[in-house]
């Protein structure tokens, strides 16, 4: 029998070692797996490469990973955040590497990794410094830049509900990077608000099929008002 639920966040993040490349879901707070990030912090591993759109955003769980010196490199589209200085200080002191990626390239490169694509040509970034030194190609009269897939050892994502097969549904804009990250990592670990009985999720509405989920925890917790989550 398949049952991908594990008991706690510590067990969920077991196996993550120093030097791992970790995708973390979320666009700002929505979709951010806070309990899993806390568990990762408690696990004490370091030299991590973190892939997250807003890595560095103010005072949240991810920035505590930075503050604790656990992160060697960040791959993201927007590390700036009002009210945050942790990332800025580390970056300006040369203590953290930054690979800045246009957000669509970030999403598409993650999707490519999950889909078995070896690389693709995109118009985004052509003629800018973020495409400097990248292969370019003229296709049907337009300029394209070659981008490579972004793989990870682990993906930590947050969804709304799961069943024991690991089928996931999300809520509103918290869906964001979860579905593509789940497919791009060797091991995908989800944090959900609730676990439901197998069959309770309509097969037509499942966003992430369980094939992409290795294990998950259920927090029993459904944020509907931001005051609750902060």
């Amino acid at each position, binding site marked *: 029998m398949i049952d991908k639920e594990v008991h706690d966040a510590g067990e969920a993040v077991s196996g993550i070692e120093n030097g791992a490349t970790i995708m973390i879901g979320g*666009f*700002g*707070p*929505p*979709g951010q797996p806070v309990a899993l990030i806390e568990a990762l912090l408690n696990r004490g591993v370091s030299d991590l490469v973190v892939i997250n*759109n807003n890595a*560095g955003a103010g005072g949240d769980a991810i920035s505590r990973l930075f503050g604790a010196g656990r992160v060697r490199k960040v791959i993201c*589209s*927007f*590390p*700036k955040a009002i009210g945050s200085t942790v*990332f*800025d200080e580390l*970056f*300006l002191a040369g203590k953290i590497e*930054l690979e*800045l*990626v*246009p*957000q*669509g*390239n970030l*999403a*598409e490169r*993650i*999707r490519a990794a999950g889909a078995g694509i070896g690389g693709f040509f*995109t*118009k*985004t*970034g*052509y*003629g*800018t*410094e*973020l495409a400097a030194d990248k292969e370019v190609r003229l296709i049907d009269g337009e300029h394209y830049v070659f981008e490579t897939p972004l793989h990870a050892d682990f993906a930590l994502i947050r969804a*709304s509900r799961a069943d024991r097969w690991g089928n996931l549904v*999300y*809520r*509103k*804009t*918290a*869906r*964001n*990077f*979860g*579905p*593509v990250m789940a497919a791009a990592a060797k091991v995908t670990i989800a944090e959900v608000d609730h676990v439901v009985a197998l069959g309770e999720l309509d097969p037509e509405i499942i*966003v992430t099929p369980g094939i992409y989920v290795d294990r998950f925890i259920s927090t029993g917790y459904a*944020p*509907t*008002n*931001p*005051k*609750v*989550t902060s």
Partner: protein
Amino acid sequence: MRLSRHQIAARVAKDIPDGAYVNLGIGVPTLVADYLPEDREIILHTENGMLGMGGAALPGQEDADLTNAGKVYVTEEIGASYFHHADSFAMMRGGHIDFCVMGAYQVSARGDLANWRTNSTTSIPGVGGAMDLAAGAKHVYVVMDLFSKTGESKLVQNCSYPLTGAECVERIYTDVAVFDVIPAGVRILEIFDDLDAGQLSTLVGFTLIDATTSATVRN
């Protein structure tokens, strides 16, 4: 008279047609939503995975899982849909968004856009979805003050700031005038301030094509 930020937003809103799919950037572009004509059905896209985005959520009624690209809590319109990030950016990059409206540090006479970083060595660079919109939206509209705080024109012959996209901007709405970028150069569509095309060209620093007409409404 120069336009206020709200007046610029209102001026942009007049040009968005019924049925359009529109992505509004952070800042003044977001204000455009407040001035969209009531008799038009215009569908707003937010890069973090939604079509049919509504206005800001009322205090106390925020949903922690529903924000716009600026991380502001928003609402959903009837008819809305959600999708994941790769699908959202496929929509932007595949040429499906009719209009995007973005702020800018500089726009060049060829329509080059610079809006993601200055040349400061102490600022943290962040690009977000700006390059995807610049490359992918059918019509890229910019809103900005025409002059910087130190009086330099932000409409320039060549951008001195790093580019977001090359030759992508179609129209520029400013506090002073509205411009179109066309193959022959930059064309003035409307002037709000008490200037003529020649004076405006002098202030901007290169020759602008005058397409203002007497029919032009000067707000």
